């Protein structure tokens, strides 16, 4: 039997960008230590359970410490690169946009997690990994960022549509956070960090961003 030639393309695709930030690497350990000290000071005498996951206020992009400013600047550049790669905007058009962004950091210890959430009023979300524990042999999703399936799924399942290959398959998608890497994806995408089962902190910086064109009315405050 000869098969017809066919063209299969992914429609309704979600952009998910992962990139190394070489310029951020030298400052990453310094910032990780700084953030760990900040978290420890804020947690103070908090109960042990509360220490499993520390999430800072979303004012990280306003911090004055130079290593933090440098690192965050690289993260935001990574978001710009993603926008340039996935939109039809020319570089001239992109240059007319101004970015609005909020940022915070999260330190997740063994047995800590971040509940599923999406970010309203956000076009793009970026997650940069500063440090990560070893994967857990017992729990494959330990230390990953899990992005929830966002397409309206079919409730009809058979032997073929349940075995679709990437990128057509249904189900959640996971990114194992690697120190020095930035992941960028739509802010509307629900994501979570499942329970971390390995020892050692998972330290992440998250930014939520949106872009305002010339003459556009202001967006609501965050």
């Amino acid at each position, binding site marked *: 039997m000869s098969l017809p030639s066919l063209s299969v393309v992914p429609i309704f695709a979600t952009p998910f960008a992962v990139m190394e930030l070489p310029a951020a690497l030298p400052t990453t350990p310094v910032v990780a230590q700084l953030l760990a000290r900040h978290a420890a000071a804020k947690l103070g005498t908090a109960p042990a*359970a509360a220490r499993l996951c520390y999430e800072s206020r979303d004012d990280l992009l306003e911090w004055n410490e130079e290593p933090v400013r440098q690192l965050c600047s690289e993260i935001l550049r990574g978001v710009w690169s993603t926008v340039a790669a996935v939109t039809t905007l020319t570089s001239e058009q992109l240059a007319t946009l101004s970015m609005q962004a909020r940022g915070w950091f999260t330190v997740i210890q063994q047995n800590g997690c971040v509940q599923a959430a999406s970010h309203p009023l956000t076009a793009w979300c970026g997650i940069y990994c500063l440090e990560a524990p070893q994967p857990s042999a017992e729990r494959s999703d330990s230390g990953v960022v899990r992005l929830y399936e966002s397409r309206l799924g079919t409730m009809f399942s058979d032997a073929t549509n349940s075995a679709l290959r990437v990128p057509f398959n249904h189900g959640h998608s996971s990114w194992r956070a690697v120190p020095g890497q930035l992941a960028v994806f739509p802010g509307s995408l629900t994501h979570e960090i499942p329970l971390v089962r390995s020892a050692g902190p998972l330290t992440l910086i998250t930014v939520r961003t949106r872009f305002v064109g010339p003459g556009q009315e202001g967006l609501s405050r965050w």
Partner: protein
Amino acid sequence: MVGPALRLSPAFAVPILQTRRDSSEQLNRALETLFLERESDEYRNPTPSHTPQAETFESRFNLFRWPEPCIQELRRFVLDNIAQAVIQTTTVTPEELSRLKFQNHTWFHITRYAGSFVAHNHPLASWSAVYCVRAGEEVREHPQSGLLRFFDPRQGANAYLDAANEHLHPPFALRSLDLRLTAGDLVVFPSYLFHEVTPFHGADMRITVATNCWFV
């Protein structure tokens, strides 16, 4: 100023039915004893649909075929309530329902410290239900421990929020629904609805029975 009369109704609504079995202590004790006795490879689900966790035991899907009286008592309670859910939410009459063949996959979960179940739904089923045999320790420091969380199916609707849509009344609110089950509680919901069990931080265990039903 007197405005025109408004008629406000929930369109695209998701039916969630909650009930409770009165005096369920004896039944739950019998179920717990039986499940703990059978928490072994012989009774473990051999083909789990999700990556198994050591902290969560999932049984085979034939639970309601077990002949033990406690299982059959639970079967009647769960399936009767699912039948009620169908009657209350559809145009199917009790007579029509009685002519349908009521199929189910039913299993139990035993979840210990750090166990959870990733967000999922159940293709090829119409109604699902969860019965709570044992709620597990409630940990004050972890208010989100061991919750049954239903995700809002209106995905993306909360991507733009302002003062006029941020605080909608239930059932219009754009957020997930968290339920903390207690022993004897039953929740019935459409199988298409995504749901998860959040990480359990109790020192003991959380035991539930879940079922997926379809009608032929």
